[in-house]
């Protein structure tokens, strides 16, 4: 792998790391398999891009993107709790609806940001080459996000999130409205996905309605790789592992794409296959370990 590809993988790992934290929140903390992120990631990209091209400050555009993502997640949460639609189906419905909404927001299927100010301009002034500056900026976002989430999950409210995913009956008996917790938690997760999307769009200089395809699988792969390789004993550890899992996942993809076996090499269209194999390997490896120990 070239250094260039290595830094590229770091950049991808960190910028998608925020999404991976969101996926960790729904899948692992809330026990709510949420596919909304395939729509809320491009939603964040769309909102941020439209905001920036209308002259909004790029940082402020991130907050708008997160707000939009939060609302999208809330819709999924409400469909599931108030209207009793199965969580997977509820999230697919929102995701599909977001496809149309995202095109409406941008007025077309994609929007370029070439020449516009982005959050990356705030680090390019530091004199670092951009292929180092952008992974650092995104790692900074991840550190802040992990710190805030670890703090939040140890507050009174945060504990109800953990408990809702673990034992809904217990936390209901403690007087907590689990519907509200789920709506909020799925909202929070999608706010992170939208933030991820907004940063990706600013980094690559364009938002595209199709950029969310397969987001959930990549996110889940990262979560699983993270907890398998780096452990998940405490909340803080699990979340750092999720970020590192995201980086590991992107490095593995970069490695695979750089691989040459005689005349055979992988192409980007093989990515889905590689991802599936990665997830399967991560899921199977604990079982194999147990078998070999016997």
């Amino acid at each position, binding site marked *: 792998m070239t250094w260039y590809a290595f830094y590229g993988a770091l950049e991808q790992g960190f910028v998608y790391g925020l999404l991976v934290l969101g996926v960790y929140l729904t899948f692992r903390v809330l026990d709510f398999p949420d596919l909304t992120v395939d729509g809320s990631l491009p939603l964040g990209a769309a909102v941020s891009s439209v905001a920036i091209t209308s002259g909004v400050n790029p940082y402020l555009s991130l907050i708008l993107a997160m707000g939009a993502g939060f609302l999208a997640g809330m819709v999924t949460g409400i469909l599931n709790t108030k209207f009793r639609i199965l969580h997977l189906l509820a999230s697919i419905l929102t995701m599909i609806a977001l496809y149309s909404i995202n095109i409406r927001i941008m007025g077309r299927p994609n929007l370029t940001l070439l020449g516009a100010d982005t959050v990356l301009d705030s680090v390019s002034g530091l004199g670092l080459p951009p292929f180092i500056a952008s992974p650092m900026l995104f790692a900074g976002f991840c550190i802040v996000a992990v710190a805030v989430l670890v703090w939040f999950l*140890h*507050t*009174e409210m945060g*504990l109800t999130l*953990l408990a809702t995913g673990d034992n809904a009956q*217990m936390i*209901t*008996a403690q*007087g*907590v409205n689990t519907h509200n917790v789920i709506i909020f938690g799925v909202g929070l997760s999608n706010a992170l996905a939208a933030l991820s999307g907004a940063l990706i769009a600013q980094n690559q200089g364009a938002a595209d309605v199709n950029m969310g395809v397969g987001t959930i699988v990549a996110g889940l792969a990262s979560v699983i790789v993270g907890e398998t390789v780096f452990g998940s004993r405490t909340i803080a550890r699990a979340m750092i592992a999720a970020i590192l899992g995201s980086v590991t996942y992107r490095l593995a993809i970069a490695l695979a794409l750089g691989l040459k076996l005689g005349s055979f090499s992988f192409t980007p269209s093989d990515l889905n296959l590689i991802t599936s194999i990665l997830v399967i390997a991560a899921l199977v490896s604990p079982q194999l370990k147990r078998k070999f120990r016997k």
Partner: protein
Amino acid sequence: MLEIDNVTKYFNRGTVNEVLALNGLSLSVREGDFITVIGSNGAGKSTTLTCIAGGFTPDSGSIRIKDENITNWPEFRRAAFIGRVFQDPLKGTCASASIEQNMALALRRGKPRGLSKGVKDKDRPWFREQLATLGLGLENRLKDTAGLLSGGQRQALTMLMATMERPDILLLDEHTAALDPKTANQILELTHTIVETQKLTTLMVTHNMHQALNFGNRLIMLDRGEVILDVGGEEKRNLTVEDLLQRFYALRGEAMGSDKLLLG
């Protein structure tokens, strides 16, 4: 204190599987009553407790606690009044949360929860003190997750959690039935101590008639969704298991049979 008035509850109404679980059940619970509840399998004991706690809404009738009509309140809202221990020891605690986090969650039962620390430093000494009363060594394991505890330990923790923030009414649904006899006795002792010292209004479902006679100041027997026997005070103290069986078959208008039915 708690007034259950003419409550009816059907399951699967209008289908071939229709069950009339509560058949116009009425019960008036006074402040400080410790009521043991017996009845054969399917008599409606669990359904009664669940209706009080809000897991099901009755089809008709009303439930009042402290003069509030709570018949249509959602379950989480009633939690402000109610402490609960389930039969399944896994249901009362959060396996992935630590002992202290579980206790902190219970400490705010029925209260708003904000962004202050979930487990507060000032509460830890008190948590330790409470756990020490169990005599299980849990006071030194505040950071262990509840999932590491045995069934009995988890049930003891649930018992503490249900009562540390004083409930207006404590609901125990065969909360020792899933434990081995020795542990079951420890939990019963603990129940007795907590209920007596805090003078808690309590409904305790049990399938053990000796327990039903030895504990509490009042005993009710349910059958086919109705209260068919309600004795208290002197009368309850003098009651024997044989008396109970006789009354049961007399009330059902059947010949005395195996006590299996009543013992469940």
